[in-house]
């Protein structure tokens, strides 16, 4: 089918292209002083991936939206199969089984899972006749998310599993769930965190009971929430023991990076030094000593933002943050404009992935979030990640183009 290229949202496409090109530029800088020729040419490979991503994007925008609607559940099933398969026969790196290797190219089924969950939840929320806050509706959408999350936690990959929750929560909000109900639903997590100190937990439980009493969300709901809170609070040690050592370390080091300055805290400390030493104007292109002298770890991928912050300073960082902000604003505008609930849900789901990974990745480089290993959308080196984000952009652009469809 043919589409009118003029009618596409070129501003949004431009924002994504700009982020991808900035990414290639920074990957070039990050690899410039590398010793191995292989690492020096990461930017060339990223350029090829970018071309591929654009091609896939072009295909996506030609696909009628019905396809995603009908295909949502089969895609979800496929994703679950892939996630099971990767556990059985995937590559194990650094103690995690997350990838398939096909002809030298790694691909993570979790990325398929994200797409599948976006389509599935969009379909579920747009066709169900259950009221927004009905327990069944909440429970079913929760279950749809929890199944892939369970498989991903098995890999284990805590960071990616959180992306799935982000999709669910933003879609809940978009489908009209009151923030107060959402807060109550999320309250067991707070219980989990405060349970590390008995006094904090006691105060929290009292506050929770007061809120429940004042807000009156319904007796059963309230009881379930309280029981969930008590259960999570008392299960903290149990859950803590279930975490892998590196996960415990990441959380501990996040709370106190100075605890292990040569080990897990090293990355955070060096990233903060890199960004902070960049100041307002930055040290200049290829002049970042932290990156040049190898103090910044993982600077092509997870810590690409640190290279940007060091060499281009506050202004450079704000340009990138600004492009992201523009992108989010544009997505929300599109979602509001779309007539079909399914289409607008897809837009919000896609934005949820970009927004969450943006926040968690940049927050990590700034030392405000734990090290999760989530790449920065569009900028971090990595072909499958780039392709996945361009598929999301494709969905959003396609939704905008077809906003009148119902």
């Amino acid at each position, binding site marked *: 089918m043919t589409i009118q290229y003029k009618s596409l949202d070129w501003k949004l496409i431009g924002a994504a292209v700009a982020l991808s090109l900035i990414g290639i530029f920074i990957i070039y800088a990050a690899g410039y002083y590398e010793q191995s020729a292989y690492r020096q040419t990461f930017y060339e490979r990223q350029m090829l991936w970018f071309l591929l991503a654009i091609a896939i994007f072009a295909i996506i925008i030609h696909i009628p939206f019905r396809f995603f609607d009908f295909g949502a559940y089969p895609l979800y099933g496929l994703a679950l199969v892939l996630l099971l398969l990767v556990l059985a026969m995937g590559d194990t790196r650094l103690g995690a089984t997350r990838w398939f290797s096909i002809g030298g190219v790694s691909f993570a089924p979790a990325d398929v899972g994200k797409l599948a969950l976006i389509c599935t939840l969009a379909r579920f929320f747009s066709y169900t006749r259950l*009221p*927004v*806050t*009905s327990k069944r509706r909440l429970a079913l959408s929760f279950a749809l998310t929890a199944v892939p999350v369970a498989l991903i936690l098995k890999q284990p990959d805590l960071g990616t599993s959180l992306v799935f929750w982000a999709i669910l929560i*933003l879609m809940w*909000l*978009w489908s*009209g*769930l*009151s*923030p*107060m*109900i959402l807060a109550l639903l999320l309250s067991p997590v707070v219980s989990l965190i405060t349970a590390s100190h008995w006094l904090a937990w006691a105060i929290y439980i009292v506050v929770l009971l007061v809120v429940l009493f004042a807000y009156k*969300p*319904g007796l059963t709901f309230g009881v379930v929430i309280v029981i969930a809170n008590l259960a999570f609070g008392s299960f903290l040690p149990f859950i803590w023991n279930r975490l892998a050592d590196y996960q415990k370390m990441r959380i501990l080091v996040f709370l106190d990076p100075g605890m292990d300055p*040569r080990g897990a805290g090293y990355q955070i400390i*060096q990233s*903060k*030094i*890199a*960004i*902070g*030493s*960049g*100041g*307002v104007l930055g040290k200049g292109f290829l002049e970042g*000593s*932290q990156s040049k*002298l*190898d*103090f910044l770890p993982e600077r092509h991928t997870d810590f690409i933002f640190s290279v940007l*912050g060091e060499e281009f*300073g*506050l202004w450079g*960082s*704000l340009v990138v*943050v600004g492009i*992201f*902000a523009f992108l*989010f*604003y544009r997505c*929300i505008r599109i*979602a*509001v404009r779309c007539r079909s609930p399914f289409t607008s849900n897809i837009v*919000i789901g896609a*934005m949820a992935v970009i*927004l969450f990974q*943006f*926040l968690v990745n*940049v*927050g990590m480089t*700034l*030392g*405000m979030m734990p090290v999760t290993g989530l790449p920065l959308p569009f900028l971090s080196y990595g072909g499958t990640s780039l392709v996945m984000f361009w598929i999301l952009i494709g969905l959003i652009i396609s939704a905008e183009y077809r906003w009148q469809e119902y």
Partner: protein
Amino acid sequence: MDQHRLSLEDRRNLLLGVAGIAVLIVFIGLVKLQIFQHSTLKEQSENNQLRIEPIVPKRGVVYDREMRVIVDNRPSYTLSVVPAEERKSITISNLADLLRIDSAEVRSRIRRNMTSVYQPATIVRDVELNHLAVLEEQSLRFPGVTYQMEKVRRYTYSLGSEAFTGYVGEVSEEEMKRASGRVDYRLGSMIGKKGIEKFYDSLLRGQEGTQYIEVTATGQAIGPYSARPPLQPVQGTDLVTSIDIDLQRACVAVLDSFCCGAIVAIDPRSGEILALTSYPNWDANMFSSVVPESSWNRIIADSSHPLLNRPLNGLYPPGSTVKFIAVGAALDLGLVTENTLLKPCGGGYQFGNRFFRCWEEMGHGALTAVHSLERSCDTYLYQVGVKLDVDELCRYYKACGFGALTAVDLPNESPGLIPSSEYFDNRYGKNKWTKALVLNLAIGQGEVLTTPIQLAQFFCGLGNNGVVFQPHMVTATVGPDGARTNIAPTVAFTLPFKPRTLELLKEGVRLVVEGDGGTARRLRNKLYSIGGKTGTAQNPHGDNHSWFVGMAPLEAPEIVVCAIVENAGHGSDVAAPVVGEVIKAYMEKKLGIKNQQLTAVNAGTPQ
């Protein structure tokens, strides 16, 4: 519950709010780091990439009086670890394997010598060259390990010079505390521990420079950091000493056949020390690298105490060498005249209920003052002692430089001991001691302790008409710019004797060798005149110590040689020939006489 459903506008605002908060969090984080914490983090980033390394200046060279090298420097490689760049479980274990030491030991050395995690901490000095080759070849196995070429001290071999050169070692915490504010020692800095190295440390060491090296996270040095130019060091000042290496060698050679002893040779005209030897000696080069524990234990356990610096710290009763003081005091005070014959010596002197023996059991007969010195008659001196007030005698001792530091330019000198009536009162109780103590004091026994350098200094006065120059060793300094500054000799004091008394004492010095009854007649020779005085110091712990202090040429003495040989017996038998050899070496060099001729002349001399 559907009343909770929100309007489209509310939902849009809600999502805008969520996205807005996310962007705001990032914005706040960026502003915090890049504006508010910028200066701290910028400094950390600089510290990250910089390794601050000292540029150690060349330590000053020590020359003898003819500009021959006594102490200079040789290259040595010091192996260090930069703690921040060390990789757990690789660096230390591989290094321990290479050096064949315990990895716990490596770790403790890092801890001990660490100033900052970014500064190299010394592990081994003077590392073997084949170890260096391994480090160079397999550098990946040793992340964080660096080595620097540094200069270590080289003491000219077999000079026995450690008695005055001392040695250098790593600065101790106590020394750092003491020097704080004046000299910036850092952990691992070398500092003079003894001798000239210590006394002139501030001149010899120069001033350390600093260089800034850019390094990668893996510790690889990139090169000098261009934004901060290095601070150049100031090279150490060279020292010219008054030591004569030839004479020093002669002293070592002549002492070599004995267990323990010391020789000090001073030019009485200036106080310049020509030779200074302590025996047994040890090799100061040992301290230039790592002292093997076995050698150290051997030195510590040695009953002959090699580390005791005998010329400055060996405390001995002076014996008869100081009889000049009691005799001079008696003459000065008019207690005897130059012609007075005291009671004849019959082998001793009865004082109260105690008989004080003269060393000559046969007796000396009646003697005048100068002949009492010639023959070293104890009986004469006992009678002088009876006439002398104890404090008067001690005042003379002190006026002759005993019981006080000579202020030689060497550290840790001992003052020795000269008593007083007060001292005896304290020690024995008031009125609980008798004049018998003074009798002993008169012959240089009992409660009097002197060092060889004090005795040499005293004889310098005798040989230089009573004028005593402060003994000193460094005569000139040569700065890094080559500018030479001479250090003028200074007069320390003059002997307390009247001119006529001094003449008589000098006559005594002459007669000891030249007189028919002189105790050191064997030193007499036809080429040059020698004077001196023998001494036999009673030693409660064993055989007597043998003393001799000689000077030559007698008409205008240029050299005073003081020798003590421990537990060797009479001064005339042992120490006198020792001094004779040293003076011979000096005069031979001065007169340009060939060794054989001199020996031939000596052989013909009646003993």
